[in-house]
C-alpha cells in the first residue's frame, strides 16, 4: 500500500507539473493557432477566389476592363474607394459587405462596369457560407501589403530624404502619373480626395471637393501672395512643397494645425516630392 500511495503521489505531482508547463505555454499556443488558422483561411479563400471571383476580377486581382474593377490595387486599401462609396468602416468590413451582399447597382465612379456584383453570402441568398466569404476576404486582404508597396518600390539604399527646406535641394522634373500613384501610397487621398468635404479633415484638391470651388493648383498659384500668408514660399511650387514638408506654417481656416503630420520631408525623396507637386498642379 505504501508503494501505491507513493507512486500515486508521484503521478499526481507529475500531472500537475505537466499541466503547469502547459499553462505557461498557453498564450503562445493560442496566438500560434490564430495565425495558423488565418493562414489556412487565406488558402481556402484562394481556392474560392479561383473558382468564383477570378473570371471577373482577374486571377491576379488586377481587374478586367469592362467587367470588374481591380482588387489588387492601392485605392482599395488606402480608403479612396470606400470613401467614394460613402462607407465609414474598415476596409475589411467594406470588402466583406461587398462580397456578402453584392452590389445592387454599379457604383457611379465605376460606370465602365455595367455588370452588377452578384450576392455571395447565404445570408442574403447567395451560394457561399459566411465563413467562406470570410475566407475570400482574408485572401483579398492579403494583397494589401503588396498593393500599397507596388507604387513605390522599397526605398533604395541610396535614399536621401528631401528635408524641410523650400529651396534646397533643387527638385528634378516631376512625373505626373507617378505622383498620382504616390498620393495613394502615402494615403494623401484619404483626406484630400474626400467627396464629403464637410467631414474631411483636410482641404479637398479638386475644385468640386473644395468649399470655394477652386482647385489646389489654382489655390497654390495665388495663396503665397495673400495678405495673411505666414509662410516663406515665393512660387506655387514652393507653396506646395512647404504645405507638404512644413505642414503647420500656414493653415487655412476652417482646417486645424497638427492634423497633417510633419513627416513627409523625412519620408520622401526629392523625386517623390517633385512628382507629387507636378501631379497637384494638374488637378482641376
Amino acid at each position, binding site marked *: 500500500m505504501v508503494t501505491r500511495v507513493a507512486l*500515486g503521489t508521484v*503521478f499526481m505531482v507529475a500531472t500537475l507539473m505537466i499541466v503547469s508547463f502547459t499553462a505557461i505555454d498557453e498564450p503562445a499556443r*493560442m496566438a500560434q*493557432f490564430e495565425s*495558423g488558422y488565418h493562414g*489556412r483561411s*487565406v488558402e481556402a479563400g484562394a481556392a474560392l477566389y*479561383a473558382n468564383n471571383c477570378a473570371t471577373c476580377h482577374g486571377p491576379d486581382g488586377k481587374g478586367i476592363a469592362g467587367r470588374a474593377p481591380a482588387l489588387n490595387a492601392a485605392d482599395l486599401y488606402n480608403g479612396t474607394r470606400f470613401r467614394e462609396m460613402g462607407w465609414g468602416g474598415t476596409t475589411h468590413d467594406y470588402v466583406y459587405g461587398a462580397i456578402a451582399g453584392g452590389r445592387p447597382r454599379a457604383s457611379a465612379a465605376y460606370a465602365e462596369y455595367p455588370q452588377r456584383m452578384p450576392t455571395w453570402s447565404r445570408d442574403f441568398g447567395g451560394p457561399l457560407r459566411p465563413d467562406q466569404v470570410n475566407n475570400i476576404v482574408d485572401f483579398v486582404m492579403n494583397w494589401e501589403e*503588396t498593393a500599397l508597396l507596388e507604387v513605390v518600390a522599397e526605398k533604395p539604399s541610396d535614399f536621401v530624404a528631401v528635408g524641410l527646406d523650400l529651396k534646397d535641394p533643387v527638385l528634378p522634373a516631376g512625373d505626373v502619373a507617378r505622383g498620382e500613384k504616390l498620393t495613394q501610397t502615402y494615403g494623401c487621398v484619404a483626406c484630400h480626395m474626400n467627396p464629403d468635404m464637410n467631414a474631411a479633415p483636410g482641404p479637398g484638391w479638386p475644385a468640386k471637393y473644395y468649399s470655394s470651388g477652386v482647385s489646389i493648383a489654382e489655390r497654390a498659384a495665388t495663396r503665397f501672395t495673400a495678405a495673411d500668408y505666414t509662410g516663406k514660399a515665393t512660387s506655387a511650387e514652393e507653396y506646395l512643397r512647404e504645405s507638404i514638408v512644413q505642414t503647420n506654417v500656414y493653415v487655412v481656416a476652417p482646417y486645424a494645425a497638427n492634423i497633417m503630420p510633419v513627416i513627409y520631408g523625412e519620408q520622401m525623396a526629392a523625386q517623390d516630392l517633385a512628382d507629387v507637386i507636378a501631379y497637384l498642379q494638374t488637378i482641376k
Partner: protein
Amino acid sequence: MALFKLHVPILDDIKTKGWRSALVTTVDQTVERITAGINVGEIRSILRGEAPKRPNPRVKPHADGFWMHMRPTFFHEQVMSLYPTFRLGWLTTYMLVFETITGLFLMLWYTPSPDIAYTNMLSLLSNVPFGLFMRDLHRLGAELMVMLVLLHMLRTFVTGSYKKPRQFTWFTGGVLLLLTMFLSFSGYLLPWDQLALWAVTIGASMAEATPVVGREVNLLVRGGADIGANGLLRFYLLHVFALPLIAFIFVGVHYYKVIIHGHSLPPGAEKVGEDTARKVPMERRLYFLPDVMTRELFWTVGWLALMVFMVTWGGWHAPLEPHADSQITPLHTTAPWYFLWLQGLLKLGDKVFFGVILPGILSGLLFVMPYLEVGPSRRYADRRIGLSIAALTIVIMSVLTFMGTPYYGVSSSPDQEVLTTLAPQTHPGLLRGTAYDELPVGEWVASGWNNAPSQGLQAVLELYNREIERYSDQLLNAKGKMSITEIQAGLKQVTMQVEWEDNGAHASEPVTVYLHRDSDYEH
C-alpha cells in the same frame, strides 16, 4: 418556555473539560460526521497501516454513508490483483465520469448550430486557455473508453464470468457497450467539420438500410433528409443528455448486479460448478478501507497522468478538419474505427444483408450468448471451443476492420490516388506539412526528386515518384508534374498533374493546393 432554544455543546464541554480537550472532541466528532463513521484515531491507524480492530470499525461508512453504501465492505483478495479484472471495469466507470466533467467544460463554449459550431471550435482553440487541452482530453477519453469497454467484454468472456448467475450482468454490459459506441459516435458530429459530417453521413446511410423502420428512424434522428441544423441539435441532445442519462442508469444496474453476485474469482480458484464469490473466508478478505480504495485511486491517478501526458508532451491531438461541406465529398472518408468492421462488411455485398441483418444477428447473439452457452465449467481447459470462437471472432473483426479502410476494395483512378496521397482531403499530408520556404517556385517533375534544390521538396517529390511507381502497371510512362508559383505575398500555389500513356496520352485532373506561410500544419 422558549420556542427556540440554541444549544452549543462545545461551550458546555469547555466549561467541564477545558479548551484543549473540548476542541479535540469536537474535531473528532466533525471528522466522524463527514466520513460517516471513521474518527481521527481510526484514520491515523489506517495511515500507520495497522490491522483493524474486531469488530472492524472501518465498515461503518458502508452502512451509514450514501457513497460508500454502493461499494462492498470487502473483496476477495484473489480478485484484487491485476488478474483477473485488469481494472477494466473500474477504468471504464472512471472514463464515464471523466467524459462528463470534460464535456461540461466544452459545453460552455459550444452552440449546436451549423452556422456557428465550427467557429466555436476555432475560438475554443484560439481564445480559450486550456481549450485545446480539454478538447483533446475529451476526445482521447472517448476513444479510450470504447477500447476499455471492448477489452472489459473480452476479459469477461475469457474468464467465463458471464456464466450463471451473471448472465444479466453481461446483458447490461452489452447495453453499455452500445451506449458507449453511440455516445462516442454522436459526439463525432458536433465540431461540424468534414470528418464529422461524412462519418455521420456514412453511419446514417448504413442505418437507413434497416428494413421497414430504417427510413423513419433516420428521419427522426437527422431531422430531415440530410444532416442539417435539426440533425445537429438532435445529435447534440442525444450526446449531452439522453445517452449519458441512460448510460448512468445502466452503470447503476450493471454494478448492482456485479455486487449482488460478487466479483467472480479466477476460473481456477474454485471447483467446477461452484460460485463462492459471496462466501469470502475471513482471512482472504481485503477491506475496502483502505486497501481497495487506495488501489482504485492509484489506478485513477495513473490513468489520468497517462492521458494528460498523451495530449501534451505525447503530441496526441483531436483532429479538426475543414468546415463541413455537403458539396465536397473527401476521397476516402471512413466511419470511426469501431464501426470500420461494418464498413468492411458492406463492401462484401448487399447493403441490407451485410449492413443490417448480419450485424443485427451478431449483436443479438452477443446479448443472449450467456443464456445459450450454459457449459458449467469456467476453466480454460474445458472451454476450448468457446475460447477458439472468441479468438476467431477477434481475427475476423480485425480483417473486417482492415477491409473497412480505404486500403481495401475502393476503386478510384490511380492518378487521383497518387495526388490524394500527396495532398489528402482528410488530413494535412506531407505536402502541406512541408515548410513554406522549402517549396521553391518553379516547375518540377517527380522523377527528378534527386535534384530538387531543397530537402523538403525532395521528400515531397520522392513520395510523388514512389506513388507513381506503385501504379506503374496502370500508369505507363507516367510523369508527375508539379508547378509552384507564389501568387501573393506569403501564399504559394502548388498545382500537380499526372500524365501517362495508355492508347494515347492521358492527363489527370490537375490538383491545386494553396499554402500560406503561417498556416503551420505541422502543429
